């Protein structure tokens, strides 16, 4: 039986609530009165218990959305067999069978046949949208321990995967055709290697993004002479005063934040036929690793000074390289910056980091002759590219955004340092 979960009325004079967190993900089981989600209404945060035992089959409103009281925010399936086969719940005919005594527990045991998955591991896995069977286990009999999954999350998970419900029915593009089965004969001059969990996640994430967003690209050329000079001027001061190395990344994050505030559509997400404007500016900064790529997120990046950004970014990058990032630190990004220029590339055309709608690519900086006032000058120049989702961002807006970033960089306010 399907049970609607509604936004509860937390008081007589309270008309709406903002969902701040889902404690359960679609597909997970929940006990009656077990906390299901959290809401906030002005000065009160409240934890909302599940109205029934069952499996969460649909979440209609994500964290951050404000919903009037009594509106349905999620659907539970109390019948285990219906829930088990319900990745697309809307296509199921209504079930009339009476609920069994402990359907939830039955469903979850059945789904993990073969290898035992402890409730805590299952919970962490669901929170991060990971299939526990894809995690290499080091426990007895290859069992996945809590540490295994936490390590897996901290090191292997590309950002934001958890924010995209795996059952989201609203994808516009058709599913990709199955990859052609290429078989290399055994004995051929090849070597087979299983993809690491991180590699697999990156692969899925990138293909899914191409399938989801209508990628378009713009490229601007920026004069970086001022920023390069400011960095040179303040570098030793930052070492002395903050004990940290001033890089160019904080300049880009700062410029992006200013532009995101001016063009909030670039900081949005698409859900079904709705555009979700995200109020926080959580800027992901791609870090290349010897074994892959990870995008730690600078939360509320606009709150931090250049010094604050420098320390935060350096800390995140360092911990990404030493595999010490916390799961929380690779989630919740609203915009991403990547740097295809580090090995001398002019510019790149990156793939959008879902569920975001744009990604900024920083090309290599090099001295190039340019014409200024009819004279040839040598300046630090850089190509800056952006890939954006044409479903919601048109070229004119994207170009205005890039022009804004360019202006902030070229006229960078020294007082911010």
């Amino acid at each position, binding site marked *: 039986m399907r049970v609607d979960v509604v936004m509860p009325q937390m*008081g007589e004079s309270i008309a709406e609530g903002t969902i701040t967190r889902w404690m359960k993900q679609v597909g997970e089981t929940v006990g009656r009165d077990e906390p299901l989600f*959290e809401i906030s*209404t002005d000065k009160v*945060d409240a934890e909302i218990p599940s109205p029934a035992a069952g499996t969460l089959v649909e979440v209609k409103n994500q964290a951050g959305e404000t919903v009037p009281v009594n509106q349905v925010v999620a659907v539970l399936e109390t019948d285990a067999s219906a829930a088990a086969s319900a990745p697309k719940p809307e296509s199921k005919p209504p079930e009339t069978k009476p609920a069994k005594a402990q359907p939830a527990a039955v469903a979850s045991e059945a789904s993990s046949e073969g290898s035992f998955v402890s409730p805590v591991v299952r919970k962490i896995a669901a929170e991060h949208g990971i299939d526990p069977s894809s995690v290499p286990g080091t426990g007895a009999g290859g069992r996945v321990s809590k540490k295994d999954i936490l390590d897996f999350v901290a090191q292997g998970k590309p950002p934001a995967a958890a924010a995209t419900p795996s059952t989201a029915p609203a994808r516009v593009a058709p599913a990709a055709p199955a990859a052609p089965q290429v078989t290399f004969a055994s004995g051929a001059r090849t070597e087979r290697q299983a993809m690491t969990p991180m590699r697999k996640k990156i692969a899925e994430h990138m293909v899914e993004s191409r399938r989801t967003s209508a990628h378009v690209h713009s490229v601007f050329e920026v004069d970086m002479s001022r920023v390069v000079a400011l960095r040179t001027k303040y570098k030793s001061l930052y070492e002395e005063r903050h004990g940290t190395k001033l890089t160019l990344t904080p300049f880009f994050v700062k410029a992006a934040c200013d532009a995101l505030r001016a063009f909030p559509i670039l900081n949005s997400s698409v859900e079904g036929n709705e555009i979700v404007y995200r109020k926080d500016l959580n800027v992901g900064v791609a870090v290349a690793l010897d074994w892959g790529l990870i995008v730690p997120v600078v939360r509320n990046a*606009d709150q931090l000074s250049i010094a604050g950004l420098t320390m935060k970014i350096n800390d995140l990058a360092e911990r990404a390289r030493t595999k010490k990032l916390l799961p929380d630190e690779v989630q919740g990004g609203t915009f991403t910056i990547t740097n295809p220029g580090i090995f001398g590339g002019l510019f790149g055309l990156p793939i959008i980091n879902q569920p975001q709608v744009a990604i900024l690519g920083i090309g290599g900086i090099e001295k190039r002759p340019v014409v200024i006032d009819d004279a040839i000058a040598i300046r630090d120049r850089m190509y800056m590219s952006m890939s954006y989702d044409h479903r919601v961002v048109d070229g004119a807006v994207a170009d205005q955004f890039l022009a804004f970033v360019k202006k902030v960089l070229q006229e960078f306010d020294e007082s911010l340092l």
Partner: protein
Amino acid sequence: MTLSCRFLGRVPYAQAAALQERLVGLRRSGASTDTLLLLEHPPVVTLGRGARAGHLLLDEAALSARGIELHEAGRGGDVTFHGLGQLVGYPVVALQGARRDAHRYLRDLEDALIGTAAAFGVEAAREPGLTGAWVGRDKLAAIGVRIGTGWITSHGFALNVGDDLSGFDTIVPCGIRDRGVTSLTRETGATPSLEEVARVAADHVATALGLAAVWEAAVSSASARRESA
């Protein structure tokens, strides 16, 4: 019904949060009664779930250089500061019947704080549209609460008692820019001890929630540490 009140003295934020979490679980299972923890925190800035960009004036490193911790708090509201000379109250109470109304709970806490201020000769009031207890345009007490499964409350209020309010310079209190902060000492010139204020506040909180305050033997912060460990 009784409200069991404890004055814990000085307790670090993280420790008090863990203690509350444990009490919420005990209260939910019926293993403990309604409880009110009263204490003060070493300097800490906490970010509520509603915290907005720009309301933190210093980043974490700069706060830490001033000896101030930064914590995220699972309560409603924006950013706030706790420090020495501020009475913090955490009611862990199972709301019942008509009291299962988040706004009513906020108003009840405000009543208790206004009553406490009056007992020390300070005329505080509500401000329409805002939460807390105010003296003119200055905030005397802040409120930010959490309601857990089963209408169990946690987090609560912070009443400024002592004279040193400099820690508030690091934030925009509760996200309200054009207002200041004040304290019982600022308003009266006299500095009552925190424990004295705690005893009065406990009575007012109990009354506002329809409970009777019962004092448990004062727990030193050392044994509070053991409890939360």
